[in-house]
């Protein structure tokens, strides 16, 4: 029986002097939903474009089972499905037609892909738009149709680059269920995202990539191990004010816009609340929130960037 484990070993991709990927090594087993997290420009999309054969590594290897994906890009395209970050070229097609046609291009037989298209439409709750031309669909529904196009007849590896962009919260949940189903069906799912909070709930394992390097890898809970017994204090500084001096009980902190995110020990929670209230009283801060640490805190500490969720909270 073929072992369909995906392996990247020492993958380096240089554009002139710039290293978009620098010696990335990782392994994804069949059935795993594997997150690739990192800030914009970290090299996530460059990595997956090499998997699907759109780019060629400068050095290193990419294999899926016995197939060398670098040497055999035809095999790579047959074995891997790819949902790019950009919108799909579906303006002239009706939703169900384009899903079935893409399924046939991917090698599926017409009857099965038609049936699968209808199942995907039902599972993603987009039946209302089944016969609507792509040009008339909203961005979120287009995104869901795009997801169905690449998974109606999925490859052994399914690469999803920011699949939830523009999708409403209810259908996001349905989309995550389908992503989970892909893994349950035996596919290796590569999930490229910078939405850490969503990824934390959905991936089996993840890698954090920053400036082309893989800087951390593991399950969400293993990556948070260092933060056990810690809390996150989020402080909204009054716009224009400097970051307040941190008390000694703060382990580390990052400022994103007017948000200061500090990590503290659970035992210091009362001190932290008192300090935050004092800052509000002095007019230096507007509000604060104390919560359990998330993968987001690990991500911020490692990359120095907040994910899109925190960015969205930062006032302009």
């Amino acid at each position: 029986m073929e072992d369909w484990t995906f392996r990247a070993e020492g993958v380096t991709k240089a554009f002139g002097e710039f290293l978009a990927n620098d010696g990335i090594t990782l392994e994804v087993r069949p059935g795993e939903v594997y997150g690739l997290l990192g800030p914009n420009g970290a090299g996530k999309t460059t990595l997956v474009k090499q998997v699907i054969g759109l780019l060629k590594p400068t050095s290193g290897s990419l294999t899926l089972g016995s197939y060398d994906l670098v040497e055999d890009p035809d095999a790579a395209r047959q074995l891997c499905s790819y949902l790019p970050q950009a919108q799909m070229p579906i303006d002239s097609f009706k939703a169900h037609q384009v899903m079935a046609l893409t399924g046939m291009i991917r090698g599926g037989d017409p009857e099965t892909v038609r049936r699968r298209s209808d199942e995907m439409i039902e599972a993603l709750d987009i039946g209302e738009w089944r016969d609507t031309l792509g040009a008339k669909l909203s961005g979120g529904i287009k995104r869901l149709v795009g997801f169905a196009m690449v998974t109606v007849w999925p490859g052994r590896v399914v690469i999803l680059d920011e699949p939830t962009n523009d999708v409403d919260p209810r259908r996001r949940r349905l989309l995550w269920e389908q992503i989970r189903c892909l893994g349950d069906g035996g596919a290796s799912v590569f999930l490229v995202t910078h939405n850490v909070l969503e990824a934390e709930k959905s991936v089996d394992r993840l890698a954090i990539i920053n400036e082309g390097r893989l800087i951390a890898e593991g399950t969400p809970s293993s990556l948070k191990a260092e933060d056990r017994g810690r809390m996150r204090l989020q402080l909204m500084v009054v716009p224009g004010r400097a970051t307040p001096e941190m008390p000694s009980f703060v382990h580390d902190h990052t400022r994103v816009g007017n948000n200061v995110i500090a990590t503290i020990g659970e035992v210091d929670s009362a001190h932290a609340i008192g300090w935050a209230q004092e800052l509000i009283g002095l007019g230096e801060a507007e509000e604060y929130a104390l919560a359990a640490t998330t993968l987001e805190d690990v991500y911020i500490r490692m990359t120095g960037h907040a994910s899109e969720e925190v960015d969205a909270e930062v006032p302009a």
Partner: protein
Amino acid sequence: MTAGQALVTAPITIRSGAGHWLRSYAVMTRWELGSLRMFLPLIVALQVVVGGGFALGIGLFFDQMPTRNALYLSTGAAVVTLITVGLVLGPQLIGNHKTAGTYDFLWSLPVPRTSQAASWVTVNSVIALPGMVAALLIANWRYDLPLRLSLSIVPAVLLTIVSATMIGYAFAHAIRKPMVTQLITTLLIFVILGFAPINFPPENLPGWLADLNLYLPFYHMAVVMRGGLTEGLVTDVGISYLVLGMYTAASVAVAAWVVGRRD
């Protein structure tokens, strides 16, 4: 299987061979024609208007159009409609995919690159042929031309469409920036209409430019097409077939190399 269950059906063996190629060609042709569905009638109508309009419009420059000139103009209009689709419209459509960000998805589809190229030639033919026929019919009605259609029009049209489409396909894929593609296509229209002996005989050009055109494909496209549409208007058709055949083979080879390479 019920809704919500994933189907993992990636091939155990990689598809290859003639059957896979033909199937891929068929579905990609459906894809390309489907992608243009909203605009296809408009594009074809435009080609018909341009082809016929060109043959009529240039005639307005003259009080009396000598038959020989009318033959050059009319057959030239047919050639221009054929080659501008492959060399101008096709590259612009590919450039649009790059601008819109949809290029990566199309390029990640699991079909042989050559079947994608062949479906592109088919779609270009569907767009170009009605314009060519319209140009000839309208010109024949207007100038009462002594056209003599022969079977050699089939290979002439085939070589002209394939070479023009593959040259356009190759540079549109090779050039990263769509804006550069746009500029090149604009330059090509200028060269094709004004400085290639398509709508007029090569004697009308300065000697050096006529000589230069012997090494470019446009003149030879016009010669083989005239060979299939007229009698006695052009000579040395065999040499033009040879040159155009070499251009066609080279353009297919270069296109195959361009689409097969990866950065």
